[in-house]
């Protein structure tokens, strides 16, 4: 994945903080919770998330000279974490990467048009009190091919703008939005076709 490439001109380097433990401590203190949340959402489990956070801050510490003062620190750290995550997953021989096609998200049975989980009339917070729903959502996100998962996590869970996601992942905004749309459709389908209780109605029941 193309990285956020901090500029390497001498002019830019002058604004980079020195690689001192004091500067590291401030960076760590201010951003470790953000990175841990991001890592948990990417990895889906806490031990892998802790590994990813440590790898991220180690790489950040080593790359202090590359940090440009006018870029957001969080953007820089997200990009380091995203790269580290790809490397870690490759080592673990994670799920194969694949492209998601829009065609695969066209519902084929009546039950697939709606979510098969109780959300109507509930706030998202109330709906998420349902443990089965939370597990189904986590499982759906976990099944996403990683390049789609990263965009969904950054945009819809971390609340990062499409432009910033593009900077983090080395993509243009259009590509970010295309991946985001497919990722959302993927998760939506997982929550509809399978559902918490596994029931679906057939297309024929409504379209006679």
């Amino acid at each position, binding site marked *: 994945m193309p990285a956020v490439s901090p500029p390497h001109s001498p002019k830019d380097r002058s604004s980079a903080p020195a690689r001192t*433990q004091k500067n*590291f*401590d401030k960076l*760590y203190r201010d951003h*470790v*919770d953000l990175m*841990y*949340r991001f890592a*948990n*959402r990417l990895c889906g489990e*806490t031990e892998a998330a*802790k590994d990813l*956070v*440590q790898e991220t*801050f*180690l790489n950040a*510490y*080593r790359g202090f000279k590359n940090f440009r003062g006018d870029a957001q620190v969080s953007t820089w750290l997200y990009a380091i974490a995203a790269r580290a995550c790809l490397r870690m997953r490759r080592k673990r021989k994670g799920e194969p990467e694949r492209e998601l096609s*829009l*065609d695969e*998200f*066209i*519902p084929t049975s*009546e039950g697939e*048009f*709606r*979510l*098969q*989980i*109780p*959300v*109507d009339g509930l706030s*998202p917070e109330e*709906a*998420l009190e349902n443990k089965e*729903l*939370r597990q189904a*959502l*986590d499982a759906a*996100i976990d099944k996403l091919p990683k390049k789609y998962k990263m965009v*969904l996590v950054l945009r*819809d*869970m971390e*609340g990062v703008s499409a432009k910033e996601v593009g900077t983090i992942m080395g993509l243009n905004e259009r590509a970010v*939005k295309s991946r*985001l*749309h497919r990722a*959302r*459709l993927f*998760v*939506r389908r997982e*929550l*509809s076709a399978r*559902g918490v*209780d596994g*029931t679906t*109605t057939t297309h024929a029941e*409504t*379209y*006679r």
Partner: protein
Amino acid sequence: MAKRAAPRGEKRPAARPHQHGKGRCLHILRALSAYIDDELSGTICQEIRLHLGACPNCEDFVASLRHTVSLCRHTSAPILASADRARMRENILKSARTR
């Protein structure tokens, strides 16, 4: 989703069958994230709203996509314990010195 399926079934028992080709639904499906993110022009939004008014399946589909995004936005993540935070900091600094 038993809670929702029953009343919907009573309200709309095959009242609005699919009268158009699936191509139109696919055309709409491509634009739905941009639609719910409010990124489309007024003309295209109007076109989509017209389609949704005539296509109950697409209407359900949009609602389910909105719900999906809303759920993603409201998920929580575990908080890092103080002891873990301190231990990880030590690990990082140790690795930085040795690697």
